């Protein structure tokens, strides 16, 4: 519609605003100079090479992945029962429980981080407990605590939309409680569960506030990058950022396919 061109132009500008910084980072990852300055000179992959040999980055990436995986496991094991409990069980204090579960999602991460730090310190639990097998129990529990809420809310929202008559039909057809859950309820929430798991994984990888306060000796990837940033920008950071961007795009494509359900 011709008369809407101001709207289109404005929207295009907003789009550009949203993508410009990312484009800059990606482009500068191929910048030939080692100082990140204007003008941009494209033409090299050497920063990716530097990245591949950066021990610190590599071990931080590994730690991040490990942590994220454990966060997903905890979040699913606690979050799925949590969602069912919210959907189907009445108990005293349910409203409080519901609010409490939402807190880590709506509060600034730093509050959850310092709360957990004080907690573990009070309990005299060392931040390095469990190192080097895992990045440390406190940080694992911290991620689990903060991210369980994601699974609870996503699965709960899906459960609310489940057609109860399907479960009645299953019972009518000789399936007991467990089999109804396994054959009928679970497949129905499967995509919400996978989506939530993916979301937890991504959020855990990017988590900074809680991680900073609870990490022991090992750095996670965001903390490692941040450490580099505080000392001054190196082009290597552009390379790792570009990789993160590429992976994120892949993740969201997968996630949106799941959410089409």
């Amino acid at each position, binding site marked *: 519609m011709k008369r809407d061109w101001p*709207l*289109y132009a404005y*929207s295009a500008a*907003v*789009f550009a*605003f*949203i*993508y410009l*910084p*990312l484009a*800059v*980072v990606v482009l*500068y990852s191929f910048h030939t100079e080692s*100082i*990140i*300055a*204007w*003008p*941009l000179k494209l033409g090299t992959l050497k920063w990716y090479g530097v990245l591949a040999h950066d021990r610190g980055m590599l071990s931080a990436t590994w730690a991040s992945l490990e942590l994220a995986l454990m966060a997903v496991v905890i979040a699913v*094991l*606690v979050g799925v*029962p*949590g969602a069912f*409990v919210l959907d189907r069980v009445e108990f005293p204090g349910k409203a409080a*429980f519901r609010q*409490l579960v939402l*807190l880590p999602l*709506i*509060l*600034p*991460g*730093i509050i*959850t981080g*310092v*709360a*957990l*730090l*004080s907690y573990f310190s009070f309990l005299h639990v060392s931040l390095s407990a469990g190192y080097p097998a895992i990045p440390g129990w406190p940080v694992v*529990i911290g991620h*689990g*605590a903060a991210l369980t809420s994601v699974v609870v809310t996503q699965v709960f929202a899906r459960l609310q939309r489940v057609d109860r008559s399907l479960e009645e039909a299953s*019972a009518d057809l000789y399936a*007991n*409680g467990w089999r109804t859950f396994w054959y009928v309820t679970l497949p129905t929430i499967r995509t919400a569960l996978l989506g939530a798991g993916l979301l937890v994984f*991504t959020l855990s990888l*990017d988590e*900074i*506030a809680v991680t900073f306060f609870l990490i022991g000796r090992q750095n996670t990837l965001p903390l490692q990058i*941040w450490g580099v*940033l505080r000392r001054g*920008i190196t082009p290597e950071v*552009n390379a790792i*950022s570009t990789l*993160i*961007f590429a992976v*994120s*795009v892949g993740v*969201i494509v997968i*996630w*949106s396919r799941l959410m089409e359900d």
Partner: protein
Amino acid sequence: MADRRRPWILVGTAIPLVWVALTLLLPYALLLIQSFWHQGPNGRPTHEFTLANYARLFGTSLYPSTILYSAGVALRVTVASLVLSYPLAYLLAFKVQRHKQLLYMAVIIPLWVSYLVRAYAWKIILGQQGVVNGVLQAIGIVHEPVTFFLYSTAAVVIALTHIYTPFTLMPIYAVLESIPPSLREASQDLYGNRWRTFIHVTLPLSLPGVLAGCTFAFVLSMGDFLAPQLLGGNDSALMVSNLVWSLFGVSSDWPLGAAVSVVMLTLTLTLLWLANRAGPAARKYR
């Protein structure tokens, strides 16, 4: 039927409840309690009840002024995000047919990219040797690098707006999408032109989404600590979370940090509660 499963239901209910109690309820409660403690000489908090932290908090100008400053930043970010996201949401909801899903995804993708990457990108753009300065010099508008872009409140606001605009857009888009087309058609059938239809029909019905989006943007940017650290400079643009950060870090006064956290927590919860109350009023049109 329920009786056979009862023990399992109890276990299944207990797991999340116990977990949340142990890993969320107790830590937050401890934070509250700790705000009433005193930082002892040996660096560990002493467990005696005192209101000194709160006295300091409200008495020293640093803390209230930082909170106000943070609120100011958050307000600017919220307004900017709203101004940017509403038209785009409107376009996606009403003017795009074919690639709607794809475009919406395109807007959401940046949300999934590391927050750190997105904040850091602005360092490259706004820095003394950054893109903006480079372009301005190339065009000839300025002859030497402008320093005030980076390490300023403006930089923080810009970066936070960039980060939270998709957050604001999502609920607005969702609400706009859910307005039945027949309502807008009815308005036009009754002699309302496009603008009137927007003002009298679309806009009021979209208010719940606007409220949700603005609440997200405000609460999230007020509690932000990374953007101010990277882009704000060390003295001029510190926000509340940076204070908490240093109190639990270098300045090492955990009880005071806990007190500031409690204040922030209270503010956040109050804002959300207010938004919740305003919700039904915004929704009364539906």
